[in-house]
């Protein structure tokens, strides 16, 4: 059967076919759809975990216990999960264990473009890299087999253009795989130094075997060509190389680490010169150079940003296809949606001229005009620790101008420990939890604060206010961010207080059903032109609502976009919006 599937959908389908039992993930673009799709299969126990480290540990535990398991995350998620990741290479596994990392070259939705192929070498595990959705589907099955044969976790690397490109995929059916027998073995699974020493040697032996395997497996292949130049490539870059050099000899690496040395030696017999075409880091290039061969790659191909066929063509052939000259459009960065519950909070923070340490989520957009209400955004959960650092550096008085903002899902992911630090170490920072009842930016995934599981079942709902109190925060407030007056008053009081405070801004994301139902009962807003003060006022424009623009010197509200949240009526000084 043939289906049009994205790389993520195809990977999920392939894993299901491979008899997968346990799947864990924390949402993160471009990886999110893998678990979303796995959760649809009744045979698979799929969960949204509080963060990538927990996700990793649960899936890893299942693999120690003998089940085929998978953990998926975006590239920076593997930083969070790095601790158990490194240990897992030493202990090895019983059931097949696949770690999926979805890297984001070009940083379409990320804070960096770290190349996680390096993690495979660093942690000493085999690396598999598909080039399209069909390969994602096919290779993940092989990944489980390799993992079981060599008793080692396998790093499966996707990138945005593989994860989010849909292609025609030939799919199969599920084959059940029995559990491996679990038996207690503390020399293997208790990483006491004495045990780990032995495990390290065992791991090195495994890598030698995997190196031989790498030259034999069909994941790595030579494609015959006509030219004297040979191209070594992997992942998405393979497609760009084929596009620009349809007749070249190609060494296509589906398993770039351990590097297939013997196959490479075979390959170079056919060509005079070898070029490595790869995105971001010179990972393959370095592997070849270590072997003592003189190859080129990053000398021509840029290291920064994602590749494209035209970049490969320009870099290696110094030519471009004829095309029209670019034309200047208008800047159109992403923005908070109409009716977004974050809007009122950022409008308020902007008004208070607060120093804001931010975090990862839709609300990072609060950094942009018109709010300009963010000073830092570093990584998941960093807002709270960063704010406390500001206070330590600049003093308690400065701290009265300071707030940390963090989303509900991000707070659970890695904000709680930061909050404990503030209470424990006598800080006075105000933390605003933007609780929009979902993981919004990645497309609305449930989390422990929503009371619904990845499978859509009801479960325990974590109470953020009680949690904050339990961490040692005495001043905890809950606000409705559509009530601007109270929002301003509460945040101001919290900031001025000598004690640390948590303000929970609680309202569902405007795109959630609950919010849409509520908005349906509201009227869409309209500007009374005669009353509108126009250009000299622009109070409503400063909300940053996409539905509001200035047309012919007066405010105009698009009836297509307005949801009726009413914030604009609240901020208009002359009641010109009804």
């Amino acid at each position, binding site marked *: 059967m043939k289906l049009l599937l994205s790389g993520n959908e195809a990977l999920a389908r392939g894993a299901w076919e491979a008899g997968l039992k346990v799947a864990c993930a924390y949402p993160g*673009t471009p990886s999110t759809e893998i678990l979303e799709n796995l959760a649809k299969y009744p045979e698979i126990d799929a969960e949204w975990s509080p963060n990538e480290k927990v996700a990793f540990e649960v899936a890893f535990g299942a693999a120690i216990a003998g089940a085929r398991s998978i953990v998926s995350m975006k590239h920076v998620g593997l930083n969070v999960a790095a601790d158990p990741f490194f240990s897992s290479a030493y202990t090895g596994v019983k059931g097949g264990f696949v770690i999926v990392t979805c890297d984001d070259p070009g940083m379409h939705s990320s804070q960096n473009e770290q190349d996680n192929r390096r993690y495979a070498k660093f942690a000493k595990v085999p690396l598999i890299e598909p080039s399209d959705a069909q390969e994602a589907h096919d290779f993940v099955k092989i990944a489980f087999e390799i993992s079981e044969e060599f008793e080692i976790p396998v790093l499966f690397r996707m990138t945005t253009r593989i994860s989010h490109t849909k292609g025609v995929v030939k799919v199969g059916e599920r084959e059940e795989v029995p559990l491996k027998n679990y038996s207690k073995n503390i020399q293997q699974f208790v990483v006491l130094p004495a045990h780990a020493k032995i495990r390290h040697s065992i791991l090195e032996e495994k890598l030698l075997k995997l190196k031989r395997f790498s030259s034999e497996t069909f994941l790595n292949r030579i494609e015959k060509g006509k030219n004297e130049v040979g191209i070594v490539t992997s992942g998405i870059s393979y497609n760009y190389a084929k*596009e620009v050099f349809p007749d070249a000899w190609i060494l296509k690496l589906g398993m770039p680490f351990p590097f297939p040395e013997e196959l490479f030696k075979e390959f170079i017999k056919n060509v005079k010169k070898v070029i490595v075409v790869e995105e971001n880091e010179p990972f393959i290039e370095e592997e070849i150079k270590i072997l003592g061969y003189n190859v080129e790659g990053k000398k021509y191909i840029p290291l920064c940003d994602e590749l*494209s*066929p035209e970049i490969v063509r320009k870099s290696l052939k110094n030519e*471009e296809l004829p095309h029209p000259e670019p*034309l200047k459009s*208008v800047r159109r960065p992403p923005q908070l*949606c109409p009716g977004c519950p974050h809007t009122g909070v950022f409008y308020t923070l902007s008004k208070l001229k607060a120093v804001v340490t931010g975090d990862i989520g839709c609300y990072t957009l609060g950094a942009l005009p018109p709010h300009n209400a963010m000073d830092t955004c570093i990584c998941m959960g960093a807002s709270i620790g960063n704010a406390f650092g500001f206070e330590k550096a600049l003093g308690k008085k400065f701290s009265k101008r300071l707030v940390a903002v963090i989303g509900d899902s991000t707070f659970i992911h890695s904000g709680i420990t930061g909050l404990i630090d503030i209470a424990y170490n006598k800080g006075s920072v105000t933390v605003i939890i933007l609780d929009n009842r979902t993981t919004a930016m990645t497309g609305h995934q449930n989390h422990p604060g929503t009371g619904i599981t990845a499978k859509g079942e009801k479960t325990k709902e974590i109470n953020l206010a009680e949690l904050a109190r339990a961490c040692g925060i005495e001043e905890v407030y809950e606000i409705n961010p559509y009530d601007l007056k109270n929002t301003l008053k509460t945040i101001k009081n919290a900031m001025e207080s000598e004690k640390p405070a948590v303000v929970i801004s609680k309202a569902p994301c405007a795109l959630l059903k609950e919010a849409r139902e509520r908005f349906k009962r509201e009227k869409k807003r309209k500007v009374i032109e005669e009353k509108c003060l126009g250009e000299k006022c622009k109070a409503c424009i400063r909300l940053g609502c*996409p539905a*509001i623009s200035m047309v012919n010197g007066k405010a105009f509200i698009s009836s297509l976009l307005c949801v009726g949240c009413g914030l604009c009526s609240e901020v208009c000084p002359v009641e010109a919006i009804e």
Partner: protein
Amino acid sequence: MKEFNIIICGVGGQGIILTSEILAIAGMESGFDVKKSEVHGMSQRGGSVVSHIRIGEKIYSPLIEKGKCDFLLSLEKAETLRWVHYLKKDEPVIIVNDIEILPPLVSLGLDQYPERIEENLKNITKNLYIIPALKIAEEIGEPRSANILLLGFLSKFLPFEEKIWEEAIKKNIPQNLIYVNLEAFKKGKNLIL
């Protein structure tokens, strides 16, 4: 072997992903290899959105190379300009939804909405079609069907059978909106400019 390289662009929330999905499925069901690439996440929230759809015998790169795009279907006027340099030099087709969506940066006075869009596009190709899709869609009672109407217009240039288009639309549109969207598709297909 003929290849069709199509870019669909517009503003997040306009239904670009859905429109390109229908196109890609029609391509696949017509027996072609298909790749369709777009970026999710941060790029959606009212920002500029683009989808590359490539249909042919064997497709490698999911991204259309600059200079290889045959058709540019734009759901918003200024967004058209952002992608014209992907078009091939030789008589590309540009289809534009005749609406302007002002980004807040314009209202804030931080940027300007481009002028003389039509004129600039005419300099690129004689195959320029600016279509009041929203107006026609409103006339048939469903403004949200404007995309499908434009897709119907694009379908004139592609060798896929009517029945395959219909099935692809039915598969991707909610039950209660299928009829009106099929009508929009036909309107677009029969549009004479």
